[in-house]
């Protein structure tokens, strides 16, 4: 017997719309089975995981806080992936963006000026973009694989951050905790509403998503991204440069990851510490694909993935299971998204050995 994927003659429009929802439903079913195996009531656990966080205002604010970096990074990655450049190192660009953006408040804690915040944001974007420029340079110069280089740079960035906050940037009055001084009030990203903590990063995320959606849908640049992503040769025929596209897409996604990084540090944390991200840069890859690499879809998928983070925290408190469960959910979700998408384009055929006797006459 052999299993074959056979391309479907036509792709059902209904199922391409339903597919992400189907993937979500399957994730819930298998998540329920997992809770049941852990000895918890599946329905109760799912309720505290996915419903409870949505019932209170403060936790909706938390949702926006968690969704903002996922969406910001996710839309940048979507452009990258559409152009066939595989930036896996958004986590590193996020970290470097947080560091470069924090240079001003950390080194000038007494500078009280309304200029400081915009400058921090710009420097965060620059830092993220430059860090993503390293794999871009290596790819265009030496034809290295950007998946490997960008991923390896994540660990360099994280260790660099660790060294900074334990060494030169450590707050002398911080009781030896590895963290910087808290940012002055001018360097903190303000909240959107008085009702909770959600800050401007969420606005940035929505604006970035809409702007990139417009670019991909209506501008020649977006067309260039799609053409080069599907065929470099056709792109060359159109007069587009694949090399410049490597730079464009990497710098863009790096800048957005950097913006997410400095926004997170400035808006949610208020100082720099060794751990500033629960893996936003990696989760954003799932966000990008769950949103079908469409910036508007990514707003929705970013909120869904943010919910798995919140749910993990809530489930830890209310039913006492490890917050690693949220990782499992993210993994399940990515798996089902990819397999649902595959089954839209292909059907599975099983071939059984049905050979009839057919010896050759001599």
């Amino acid at each position, binding site marked *: 017997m052999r299993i074959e994927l056979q391309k479907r003659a036509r792709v059902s429009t209904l199922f391409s719309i339903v597919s992400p929802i189907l993937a979500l439903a399957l994730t819930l079913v298998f998540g329920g089975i997992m809770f049941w195996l852990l000895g918890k009531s599946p329905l109760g656990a799912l309720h505290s995981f996915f419903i409870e966080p949505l019932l209170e205002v403060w936790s909706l604010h938390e949702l926006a806080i968690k969704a903002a970096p996922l969406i910001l990074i996710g839309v940048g990655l979507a452009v990258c992936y559409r152009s066939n450049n595989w930036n896996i190192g958004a986590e590193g660009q996020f970290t470097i963006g947080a560091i470069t953006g924090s240079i001003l408040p950390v080194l000038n804690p007494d500078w009280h000026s309304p200029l400081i915040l915009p400058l921090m944001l710009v420097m965060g974007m620059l830092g993220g973009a430059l860090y993503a420029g390293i794999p871009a340079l290596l790819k265009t110069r030496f034809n290295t694989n950007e998946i490997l280089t960008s991923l390896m740079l994540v660990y360099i960035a994280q260790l660099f951050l660790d060294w900074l906050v334990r060494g030169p940037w450590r707050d002398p009055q911080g009781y030896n905790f590895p963290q910087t001084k808290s940012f002055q009030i001018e360097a903190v990203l303000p909240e959107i509403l008085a009702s909770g903590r959600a800050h401007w990063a969420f606005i940035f995320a929505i604006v970035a998503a809409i702007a990139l959606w417009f670019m991909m849908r209506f501008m*020649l640049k977006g067309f260039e991204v799609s053409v080069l992503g599907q065929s470099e040769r*056709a792109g060359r*025929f159109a007069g587009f440069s694949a090399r410049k596209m490597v730079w464009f897409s990497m710098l863009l996604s790096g800048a957005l990851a950097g913006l997410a990084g400095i926004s997170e540090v400035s808006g949610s944390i208020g100082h720099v510490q060794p751990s500033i991200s629960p893996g936003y840069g990696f989760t954003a890859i799932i966000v990008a694909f769950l949103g079908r690499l469409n910036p508007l879809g990514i707003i929705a998928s970013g909120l869904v993935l943010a919910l798995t983070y919140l749910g993990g925290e809530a489930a830890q408190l209310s039913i006492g299971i490890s917050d690693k469960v949220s990782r499992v959910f993210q993994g399940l979700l990515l798996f089902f998204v990819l397999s649902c998408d595959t089954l839209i384009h292909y059907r599975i055929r099983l071939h059984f050995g049905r050979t009839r006797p057919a010896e050759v006459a001599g």
Partner: protein
Amino acid sequence: MTLSAGPTSVPLLSVRGLTKLFGSFAACNGVDLDIAPGEIHALLGENGAGKSTLVKMLFGVLQPSAGDILWEGRSVAINSPGEARQLGIGMVFQHFSLFEALTVAENIALSLDPKISLAKISDEAAALSKAYGLPLDPNAHVADLSVGERQRIEIVRALLQNPKLIILDEPTSVLTPQEADRLFETLFKLRSEGRSVLYISHRLEEVQRICDRATVLRHGKVTGACDPKQETPGSLARMMVGSEVAQVHRDGSAALGDVGLEVRNLSVPARTPFAMSLKNISMTVRAGEVLAVAGVAGNGQSELFDALSGEFPVTDDAAIRIRGKAVGRLGINGRRLLGAGFVPEERHGHAAVSAMSLSDNLLLARSRSDKRAFLSGGAASIIRYDAIRSAARRICEKMDVRKSGDDPLAGSLSGGNLQKFIVGRELDRQPTVLIVNQPTWGVDAGAASRIRQALIDLAKAGSAVVVISQDLDEIFEVATNIAVISEGRLSAAEPAGSLTLERIGLLMGGIHESHPVPEAAHAH
């Protein structure tokens, strides 16, 4: 075993009602076919007629949706190429599956039982190639061999299995006339031994010359079974296309105008180990002229196209001039702005993106040259979809592009219709210089004649046209002058009227008067 029996006995292979569905589309629809022992049987049809699908089912690559295959009168199921080989079916594909870095013997060994030693295989291959008039050095590296020699490897590889039926898919599309003649002799020898040959082609003259019987396919159905020697090329073409193929006609030669394209001593080193370098190429094409560049595939045609189109600009700016302006270092869009248009060989993934709509594919080639019409919003370059769609509609109407829906994906069109669109996309701009690589490669007869006519008409309207082609019939139909490319060198252009097929064949084999090297094609 009655290998030498006449066609009255049980057919070697019979196919009854064979159907293959891809989704709801029937690539083959109730096909009947009989191949007698010891005959050369032609399978004729346009592109997309279902020839390859049929053959893939016979060779076990695809499984039929319905119908029966009878081998020597018994019903069989062929589940894999391995089972087909066991039955006694050998196949030579159009696109060779050879490893360029390995030797001939190693390539043959890959398809055989791994226990047989390489030395034994070389000996057998050498003996077979001698017996069938297919000169081949088992120790040569495939990368050094011509296309004709590579095909011989495939044939020898098939013959080593001692097959009763050999399937050849478009075998002469890549051969020089001399190489093709040699292949025919081999086929006759196989026939005289009582083996059968299923010969897939769209070259009518060839089929008439060598085949005993022919089955014609159209839209997945058999439209005729005949003795090709009793038919005329016209009647065969009618069965293939369903209507009379329009004859390309040219009334008188147009007066030649200014020089449109001039190439002087263009040399380009090979970009990859397997590419061909261009050596000292010169040509001049005037308005009103069609210069055809003939040659066997892989002799520098695509490299020449890359250099002329500016997809890979060259270092010497003055080596290429468009309308007198040096453009060697200019990119493709800069050359388009000077009035040049380009049609590359490969439709999918080069001239067009299959997963994009026709209107997107129109923008692909003309985003810069038609900036005013197709884009707005200044630096933001907002795409004007309405303008592009109506231009795409205009092109489809003009070139008679048959499609489903208003603006379908390029990949959903048949090869011929997509090629008509790609050529039409350039013609719509009225280019003063048009450079086309293999304009009708893999295109059905109807579309091919339309494209050729369009090229002639464009030249007559005062453009300089370069047609790079392997198809000699096409070249003689459209060309006013012919030059031959071989091993990256281009012969001097000569008027089409004064060149004979034999002479072109010699030039294609790399034999120029300047350096007569006998058997140069496979010296190494």
